[in-house]
């Protein structure tokens, strides 16, 4: 009974940003539990590769090249899902990106820089959630939306525009969940911490990751595939009483953070000071 809740047989699922990294891992995980996938990203070769991998594993998927910072593109993406599968059941609004380095001084940041980062990371989530929910309601209601934010949104960060946009995604999730509840559409948000996007391609890269991992409470970086089971939980009926929530997956980073992870005070009560 409980295990059945995680199955997604025949569900039509769109994953944006599924040409690589976390989006690709989520798309493959959802296909592994029976979902029919629409893989979207800007680069056709990458989403075609994701589709090929899903099909090789016996799954069903199509690729739809999409620039999520353009609302017409996102509307067309949902239309493509409906054309292929007759409906949309789940939208995973995962696409996003850093948008390059912020200038060292905050006051030197340009309008173009800030707006560009908001377009890729926040407006894209709005376009995706809007297009998906419009179709979900048109087909009779019911559905699931999962946005992807970032742990950088929950603490200050010198890249400022990206955390600000991702903070907006968290806020969008909460507000939209209240507006779509009456249509039986749940909206939640994944908040990843430091997670590697792919296997290390050299010993040097593996060493860099090990050194960064030492600063995480669980003493390692997360890996792309670890988003898979979480995506399945949130996209499926397993999370039927969960909405408006953030799911932080960060190796216990945000639970701590008051001192270096190795710092552990030692003091006996009553011991001579």
């Amino acid at each position, binding site marked *: 009974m409980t*295990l059945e809740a995680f199955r997604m047989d025949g569900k039509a699922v769109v994953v944006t940003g599924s040409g690589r990294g976390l989006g690709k891992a989520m798309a493959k995980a959802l296909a592994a539990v029976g979902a029919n996938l629409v893989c979207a990203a800007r680069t056709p070769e990458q989403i075609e590769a994701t589709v090929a991998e899903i099909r090789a594993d016996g799954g069903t998927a199509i690729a739809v090249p999409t620039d999520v910072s353009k609302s017409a593109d996102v509307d067309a993406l949902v239309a493509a899902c409906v054309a292929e599968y007759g409906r949309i059941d789940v939208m995973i609004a995962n696409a996003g990106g850093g948008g390059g380095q912020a200038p060292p001084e905050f006051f030197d940041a340009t309008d173009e820089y800030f707006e560009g980062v908001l377009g890729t990371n926040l407006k894209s989530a709005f376009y995706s959630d809007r297009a998906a929910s419009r179709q979900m309601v048109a087909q009779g209601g019911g559905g699931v939306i999962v946005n992807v934010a970032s742990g950088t949104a929950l603490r200050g960060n010198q890249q400022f525009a990206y955390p600000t946009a991702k903070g907006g995604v968290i806020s969008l999730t909460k507000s939209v969940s209240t507006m779509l*509840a009456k249509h039986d559409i749940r909206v939640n948000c994944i908040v990843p911490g430091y997670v590697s996007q792919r296997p290390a391609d050299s010993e040097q890269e593996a060493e860099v990751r090990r050194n960064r991992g030492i600063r995480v409470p669980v003493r390692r970086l997360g890996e792309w595939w670890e988003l898979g*089971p979480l995506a399945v939980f949130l996209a499926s009926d397993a999370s039927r009483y969960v909405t*408006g929530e953030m799911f932080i*997956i960060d190796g216990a980073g945000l639970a701590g953070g008051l001192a270096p992870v190795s710092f552990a005070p030692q003091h006996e009560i009553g011991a001579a000071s």
Partner: protein
Amino acid sequence: MSPVTPPEHFDLAGKKAMVVGAETPVGAAIARAYAEAGADVALAVLHADDSVMRAKRLQQEIEAAGRKSAVYVMDVALGRNVQVTTRQIAKEIGGVDIAVCASDLFLGKPIAKTSDSELQQVMTYNFNAYYFVARSASEEMKRSGGGRILFVTHVLGERGLSNTSAYGAAHAATQNLVRSLSQEFGPQNITINGIATGWMDWMTDRLDESDDDAGRAVRFTLPRRAGTAEDVAPLALYLVGSGVGYVSGQIFHVDGGLTQHL
């Protein structure tokens, strides 16, 4: 680390689970879910009363499905008793890979009317029990190279509500225990997380059916219904799966959006 695909993640075959508070609706639902996923499940009840009979029936159900199960009475007021019982469970079912604590005792009273002994009892069942279970279970997990600890707590641990000062404070303590221990257990491959429930259908201790306000509280949820134990079980399974090692130190709400809207 080798990637874990979702069906494999939810497979608990060969895992040994201990559920404290197995006589409660949520404890029983979690125990059932773990058994369904393939785990052997030790059922620890909080009192030597009719809870034992209820747990025995659950034990039979789990055994009928082909898993090992046994019932234990655990006095969570005593750390030593929790330790000895946990040791016994580990010896009898072959270890403790997963430990769940779903102990709960509600009290609804203004602070002025709350006695010392009531405060102590509330702290015992809503906080001390969790502390003792984490302390004892983590020792067993260290022997086998890691494990998963899951606390079932309540959203009153992070929000204020009249007449719940003792109960809310105890759950707040339990929720911060999750955060502290996630740091302490991080290097030992032991994850610890919490599920905070909201207004659940079995909580007649705080949702008196004859009280109109109780119905209004339930309508504060976005789906406008109280949650069920079966709503909690899937998340309880996700949080102890083999591929969840990077999730730790978090409290996840299963509350129908209760805490996320104005």
